[in-house]
């Protein structure tokens, strides 16, 4: 047995397969071009190839796959939103996530923890009850819990009434989960590539050709390709890419920061979020405490992180979980989020024929990755906008028909 192992280690024919083949040359033309190799673009490519038989597809990614917000988020997955449109949509995503490891034959470390949105004020308690009722009505597992429940469910939580913002209760969402975000990008990319999708990393889109109101080609720093249809899924770069196609968006690019601690033994099961204190925290399967806060105070096309952020965040983290005072922060970073005025995404048609958009994912889009892939692919394949995503159309802003997703706010996703 040990000899077998040594032989295996030294042999050149390792069965371990490479995830992606070397970057291919550009073809002159594709049926579908996907701009942006984050989770959303890759999931769309996978669904096109796997469920709609559309395989002449190229994904153009400026850097490396998953290097945008997909690899920078705090990986919280939940469906306890406030609007019926939002709840129905995120619920489909959660159900896809639950079986995603099997679907992709790749472990995304999906881990259901229970998600608590703490309420520190009477009005937050009222909103929590509202959300719980909307959720239950739509079949989502959510309930309002009180201080005695919290003492039992999260023993580490500081429930002292001496705290600056004492905790009154919480919206409890048992299916709330975390997953390994890189694995989501790699899983979709690997499977899409096996089905013939070309994934072009290190390929920047520099222009979009529109002829007679219809998209006809995409220009990259490696050359131009023709395309039947194109879709952009570029998060913080949404406005810049849309501008290339002559489309204007109601989006601001604002950094969102996060950090992790050194790894510790598992000690925190729950995902804890406080909208009032601008904190969310969970413990990863590697043992790191993953912590985030609210978006930066002003728009920037940058991913630098700041001392202001970490100082502000930690004062609140330590109020909620004082036992973390000895824990050291190991890394902090930022991603560029694409924030909309109503905290809901923008999905669907753009006014340019055959040019589609998946944007406005702000601080809440990781949890939507599978449902976006599925529904964007359906739209590209059939040419019809699926009912589930119709409320998120770009034209809602022209018609003053916003979605008002207060379940999102800029914290706690």
């Amino acid at each position, binding site marked *: 047995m040990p000899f077998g192992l040594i032989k295996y280690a030294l042999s050149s024919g390792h069965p371990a397969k490479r995830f992606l083949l070397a970057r291919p040359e550009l073809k002159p033309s594709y049926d579908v071009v996907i701009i942006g190799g984050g989770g959303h673009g890759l999931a769309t490519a996978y669904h096109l190839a796997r469920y709609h038989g559309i395989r002449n597809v190229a994904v153009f990614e400026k850097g490396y796959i998953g290097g945008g917000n997909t690899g920078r988020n705090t990986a919280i997955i939940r469906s306890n939103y406030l609007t019926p449109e939002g709840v129905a949509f995120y619920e489909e995503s959660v159900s896809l996530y639950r079986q995603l490891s099997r679907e992709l034959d790749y472990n995304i470390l999906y881990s259901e923890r229970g998600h608590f949105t703490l309420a520190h004020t009477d009005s937050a308690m009222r909103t929590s009850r509202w959300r719980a009722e909307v959720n239950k009505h739509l079949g989502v597992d959510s309930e309002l819990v009180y201080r005695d429940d919290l003492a039992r469910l999260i023993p580490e939580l500081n429930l002292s009434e001496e705290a600056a913002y004492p905790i009154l209760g919480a919206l409890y969402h048992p299916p709330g989960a975390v997953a390994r975000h890189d694995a989501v990008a790699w899983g979709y990319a690997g499977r899409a590539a096996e089905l013939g999708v070309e994934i072009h990393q290190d390929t920047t889109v520099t222009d979009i050709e529109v002829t007679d109101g219809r998209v006809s080609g995409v220009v990259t720093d490696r050359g131009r390709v023709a395309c039947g249809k194109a879709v952009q899924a570029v998060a913080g770069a949404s406005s*810049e890419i849309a501008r290339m196609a002559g489309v*204007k968006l*109601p989006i*601001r690019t604002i950094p969102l920061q996060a950090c992790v601690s050194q790894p510790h033994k598992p000690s925190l099961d729950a995902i804890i979020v406080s909208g009032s204190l601008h904190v969310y925290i969970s413990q990863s399967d590697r043992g790191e405490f993953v912590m985030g806060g609210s978006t930066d*105070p002003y*728009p920037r096309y940058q991913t630098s992180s700041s001392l202001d952020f970490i100082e502000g965040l930690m004062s609140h983290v330590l109020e909620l979980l004082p036992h973390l005072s000895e824990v050291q922060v190991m890394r902090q970073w930022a991603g560029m989020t694409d924030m909309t005025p109503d905290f809901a995404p923008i999905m669907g048609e753009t006014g340019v024929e055959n040019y589609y958009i998946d944007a406005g994912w702000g601080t809440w889009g990781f949890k939507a990755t599978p449902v976006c892939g599925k529904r964007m692919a359906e739209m590209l394949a059939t040419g019809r906008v699926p009912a589930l995503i119709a409320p998120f159309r770009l034209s809602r802003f*022209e018609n*003053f028909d916003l979605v008002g997703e207060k379940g999102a706010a800029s914290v706690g996703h």
Partner: protein
Amino acid sequence: MKLMHCPLNGWRNIQEFTHGGEVVAEPDPNRCSDAEWAEFVFMEENKAGMVREWWCHTATAYWFIAERDTVKDEIIRTYDAGEVFKERIEFTRPEPPKEA
């Protein structure tokens, strides 16, 4: 700590300021179409590069204009809004709608 120069109060910590969005021409609400108004209310240039924006020094409630590079995160110039807006904006009563 990042500093910003307030035309009224001098150099201050950027945390004392509130970002107020792009400086854009406001269409006349009594005359423009719904689409023009929607564009004014919701749409953003959101440029990577040089932008001209409203900022407010929160403590003194003083609004001014800043020119900023959103890629380098540098503040190039700040100045009083009077440099751009020379006339007072009148909030007059809208004309009654014309009889159909």
